[in-house]
């Protein structure tokens, strides 16, 4: 029934656009509007001021490192949770989402207690960039794991078994059979992890030290400008963060598109 199918497609597209416009585009539009309140030249001077640039560099750099670590460690974790069997696996699987369910201040408190000045294991990374990466790893942990898991679960093992029976080594099997299939999942998770890491504030405020130019992340910079009444300046940096994240997300989407073009061939 082509007409009902067409209607369904139009409806779903319409719903998607309407929902996105209302929930996502509208607030962002308000933000962009506020950032130009003092004029375009003021926008640039605030966004490129030394402190803002330092904060942006720190946030983007940390987010990139964390996204990369997640790509590898998250995939390994997903693999182990799907393909491996060990005592306590169900429990481990159940707690993967907890970094989302816990308020971010708890992340900061526990990381400070474990890896700060009074650390029971003798590690003190508080107020260093390592602490920033550690806190971000905590809050982004579920992303790649949970986007790769469903794909792995749907992956039938026949192709891998066939390859193995033909003599291919494990690494070869992974690289040529498993990886192409889970790559979209990995890239999805990486995009999410990157976006979240760029904007994170709660888990970082206790453990990073917030020293301007050194350990102050972009979101803290934005926060302090909001608090001190410089709404336009805050909005300007927030818009820059958004624009960069948007660009990165588009690029990752593009990579995903290219990487999966064999499916559309």
């Amino acid at each position, binding site marked *: 029934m082509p007409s009902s199918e067409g209607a369904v497609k139009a409806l779903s597209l319409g719903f998607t656009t309407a929902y996105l416009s209302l929930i996502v585009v509208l607030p962002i539009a308000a933000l962009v509007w506020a950032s130009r309140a003092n004029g375009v030249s003021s926008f640039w001077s605030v966004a490129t001021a*030394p402190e803002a640039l330092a904060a942006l560099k720190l946030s983007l750099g940390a987010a990139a490192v964390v996204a990369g670590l997640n790509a590898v460690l998250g995939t390994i974790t997903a693999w182990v949770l799907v393909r491996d069997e060990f005592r306590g696996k169900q429990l481990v699987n159940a707690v993967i989402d907890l970094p989302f369910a816990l308020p971010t201040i708890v992340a900061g408190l526990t990381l*400070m207690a474990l890896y*700060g000045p009074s650390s029971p294991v003798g590690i003190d990374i508080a107020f260093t960039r390592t602490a920033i990466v550690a806190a971000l790893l905590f809050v982004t942990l579920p992303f790649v794991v949970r986007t790769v898991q469903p794909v792995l679960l749907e992956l039938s093992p026949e192709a891998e078994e066939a390859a193995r029976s033909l003599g291919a080594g494990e690494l070869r099997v992974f690289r040529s059979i498993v990886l192409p299939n889970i790559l979209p999942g990995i890239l999805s998770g990486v995009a999410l992890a990157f976006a979240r890491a760029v904007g994170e504030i709660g888990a970082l405020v206790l453990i990073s*030290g*917030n*020293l*301007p130019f*050194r350990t102050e992340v972009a979101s803290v910079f934005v926060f302090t400008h909001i608090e001190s009444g410089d709404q336009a*300046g805050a909005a300007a940096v927030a818009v820059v963060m958004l624009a960069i994240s948007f660009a990165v997300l588009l690029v990752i989407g593009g990579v995903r598109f290219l990487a999966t073009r064999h499916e559309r061939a």
Partner: protein
Amino acid sequence: MFSISIDKHRNRIVLAAAVAAALALAAGAAAHPTGTTLSLVGYSTPKAVMGKIVQAWQQTPAGTGVSVNQSYGASTDQARAVAQGLKADLVFLSTGDDVNLLVDAGLVNQNWDEQAYDGIAADTVVVFAVRPGNPKHIKSWADLVRPGIQVITPNPFSSGSAKWNILAAYGAERRLGKTDKQATQYVEQLFRHVVSQDLSGRNATNTFLAGKGDVLITYESEALNSRMNGQDIQYVIPRQTMLIQLPIAVLKSSPNVDKANRFIQYVKSDPAQDLLAQYGFRPVDPRTAKKYADKYPTRPGMFKVGDKYIGGWRAADKVWFQPTTGRMAKIEQAVGGPTAG
């Protein structure tokens, strides 16, 4: 084939239960106020004592039958929320700066600081929290800039506490005879010793208690509050210190201005002032202050924000705390920025 009919049934029941639960929650969550309701918006530290004061006031004739909605959070956040429409009849904040925010929004009268006790409900002072036994012998502002001393103070752009600390540091130096330039240089030197600029006073206390730093610049009320909650914290009141004045003000748009003013009067009167003193705040009422004189020693070098070297909150804000042109912005750049040594 799929056993879809059974699952559909089960899923439908679960969905219905979820909707029913949501509706029940919504019904239960709706507030049904009767009689007069006052909305008090305050900053975070006095939450416990204000709860007690509200309860005590509700036993008096003026407060009988009045329900009081209470909201506590970071001072500037609360001020901004009220400016954006958070319902409030009165505010109790940690700096006059935040009350001026509401004056500028047209919500509080300009003469708020001409009320009883200059519009202040309670005082406290800037102190140095130190490690047990004060191993580094920190007593004065000069000690804070000795080589190797690590200082904790919050970020001045997000924390009222930090503003008091900075003005206290500057004012102390001016009172010791330094010039404006020298005193400002002292503040810059101080910030070279700062190892963490937490976003709030409470976070700074937490950082210090977690083991970082040799000294924390904080409010006396914050230190006493931590002690009351079981934290082992020792503090020193420097000779030159600033009197932190905590303002309370009524909103002129309030539909219950009279009731709100009655409550504010109560807060400045004996029973409430006594409670405040018990909870770590210095009373403004002279009789109560005398009663607790031992708990709250004075210092010869105590000064206020209205002092001639500072000139009040409006002036201090313009000189020190403008986000890009203020002295603190320049100091942060000098200490941490690309031109820093």
